[in-house]
């Protein structure tokens, strides 16, 4: 502890150089924070996705094909299934072709909410049950277009009604929020029964069934049992948990992980080299001072530690500063990749990396300082 002033003066021996190194390390670790945070954030999204919520869709594909509503009973009778909820999805536009919305048609039966990731006030659900043309709107969307409860909103779709029109209108009865990041921002919920009766084609079909199960540990067994029941029929199903879906979605950005790792290692290596040469230079300039310290009785070990601690202190402070900066930048990055946050792990990892890089780059200069020959150094030979 008593050596602190000595180390402190060593750090500020050349303020310009230290400030530049500090800035360089800060910038590098800000990048480190953002990239690593992106990666860890994505992994958290998978971890947070519900494992006890299954999606039963056509075995051919997730988005485009449909299943008959008649599978409902068959799915519900599978042991372990708690709630089955039919879901139909379609796209719509509001006012002009660029304002796109997603419409989710559901049946607000008893317990339906447990098969979704939505949170809705109970009276909004009651209102949806009693209003055939009712719609519950995602919070952000309500603000976006300034809608309020009681508004009548006309939507353009590609789904024809019985009367041939492809325009639909719904009455706002409430708002909801969604904890699933893949859920989409501009979405509204409507009554499936109303939609199905009013549409012209593909009646009695759904995109998928949401299934809530009683025990998340049995997810795989329940999913296999559902698929087994409908295998080899014209409507073979494929059942995944929300977590599996999140995983397979994120595999498509798998190469991004490689990219992030590559960039982070390039940055750290460049930093390692830059600091090592700077420390070398500094040791060369300070040769006489170090020799004086040794003459005064400081051991080789002490000199070695001074140099290493100097580097580690600058790096740790700068890395902390850079990571704090990344935390500030993160809200912007999460606009592009929704639902991301920078967990504490990343900060810890960044600090560990900083200390390691500092220690390694200070190693050679520190050894050289420790091995200094007093007589030769003082004589500046």
């Amino acid at each position, binding site marked *: 502890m008593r050596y602190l002033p000595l180390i402190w003066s060593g750090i500020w021996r050349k303020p310009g150089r230290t400030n530049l190194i500090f800035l360089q390390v800060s910038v590098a670790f800000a990048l480190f924070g953002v990239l690593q945070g992106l990666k860890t954030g994505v992994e958290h999204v998978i971890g947070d996705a519900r494992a006890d919520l299954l999606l039963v869709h056509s075995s*051919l594909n*997730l988005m485009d*094909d449909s299943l008959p509503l008649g599978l409902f009973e068959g799915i519900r009778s599978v042991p372990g299934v708690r709630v089955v909820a039919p879901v139909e999805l379609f796209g719509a536009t509001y006012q002009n*072709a660029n304002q796109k919305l997603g419409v989710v048609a559901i049946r607000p039966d008893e317990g339906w909410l447990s098969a979704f990731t939505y949170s809705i006030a109970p009276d909004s659900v009651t209102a949806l049950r009693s209003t055939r043309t009712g719609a519950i709107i995602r919070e952000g969307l309500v603000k976006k277009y300034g809608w309020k409860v009681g508004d009548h909103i006309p939507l353009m779709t590609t789904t024809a009604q019985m009367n041939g029109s492809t325009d639909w209108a719904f009455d706002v009865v409430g708002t909801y929020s969604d904890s699933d990041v893949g859920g989409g921002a501009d979405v509204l919920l409507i009554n499936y029964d109303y939609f199905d009766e009013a549409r012209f084609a593909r009646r009695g079909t759904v995109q998928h069934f949401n299934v809530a199960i009683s025990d998340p540990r049995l997810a795989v067994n329940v999913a296999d049992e559902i698929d087994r029941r409908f295998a080899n029929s014209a409507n073979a199903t494929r059942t995944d948990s929300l977590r599996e879906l999140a995983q397979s979605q994120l595999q*498509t950005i798998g190469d*991004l992980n490689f990219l992030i790792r590559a*960039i982070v290692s390039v940055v750290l290596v460049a930093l390692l080299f*830059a600091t090592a040469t700077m420390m070398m*230079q500094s040791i060369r300039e300070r040769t006489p001072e170090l020799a004086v310290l040794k003459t005064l009785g400081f051991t080789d070990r002490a000199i070695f530690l001074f140099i290493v601690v100097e580097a580690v202190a600058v790096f740790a402070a700068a890395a902390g500063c850079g990571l704090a900066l990344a935390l500030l930048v993160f809200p912007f990055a999460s606009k*592009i990749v929704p639902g991301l946050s920078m967990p504490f792990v990343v900060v810890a990892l960044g600090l560990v990396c900083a200390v390691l890089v500092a220690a390694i780059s200070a190693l050679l200069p520190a050894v050289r300082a420790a091995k200094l020959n007093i007589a030769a150094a003082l004589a500046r030979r």
Partner: protein
Amino acid sequence: MNLSGVRQRTAPVLTIIIGVTCAVGVLVSMLAMGTGARRQEMANILADQAALITPGARYGQSHISRDDVAAILGLPGVQKGTEGEPIVVFQSMVPIEGRRRVTGNRIYFPLIGITPTVTQYQPQMRFTGGRMFKPGLHELIASSPCVRQFTGFEIGDRRAIHGSDWTIVGHFEQGEAQQCVVYADVDNIMSAFSRNTYSAVSVRLQSPAHFAAFRDAVRANPALQLEAQRQGEVAEAGFKELNAILDFVSYFVGIIMAIAATLGAVNSLYAIVDSRRSELATLRAIGFDSGAIVVSILVESILWAIPGALLGGALAWVLFNGLSASPFGFSFQLAVTPSLVVFGIIWALGMGLIGGLLPALRAARVPVAAALRAT
């Protein structure tokens, strides 16, 4: 003249070069993703190809009714095929699930119901095995990337689609395209998936100049609620979103790395200037004015940035050119083009110039007398 002392300052110079190499290498590699994706998207598109789309819809997500077929076939300016039929391709796209060869992971690829005129619409389409599907039969043909990447696409393999078996009867190449696509007869696909609208219609024009006549004819026909666009524009528009993301990420990372590398260069140049105080003072003493000193330091700084840039570009080329990447669900090959490398060099010159400025000013302000007295 000031390069003669290089040997004594190897370490700071190496620092500059390595910093610039890393910054340029990363930027060029990342931009190569965008270039590669764009190159692939545009490679197979000919100037005489046009598409009909539902206004406001993306390509491949249009809804074009069967009732419009006759009117579309009668449009002017469309090239005639070998048997005198107009080269118009009707498509209906359905995403289908496949499994990756190595990892066994599930992935989606497009199954496209298409009219047999596609072989004349895409002259670069070439069969590498088997034959074309026969209209009316449950037959599939797969592009060669499917065979390389996924299981179950050998000729003779069967896939169950909506309760019936479809047989793979052919493999084809599509020029530079790396995307897996599977074609089948469009009418079969539409009846299997109970569809009544096409999701895309493309035509081959007699020449690129016939586009105006074609577009006007589409506009003039009130029965057609469609819009004609050149295929190149359609691809460009569909690609805009991915391009914007790739560019944003590339420049975000690139700029941050450039700042870090520039800061490193500033530090190294300060060290170089400091170690040459007496030398610089001597130069001033024998009559070089401070302007000459500033220029000499700037030139030196820029000179060290150039090998860094070349090395960075070369590394990006050696490591990543032609490498397949599939971020955001698209797969394409990275393309490190000469223009990207030139951009990297300009980028590096900028770093050198900005990084050299402050040290150059300090060098010019070295007090002659004091510097010469110092040992």
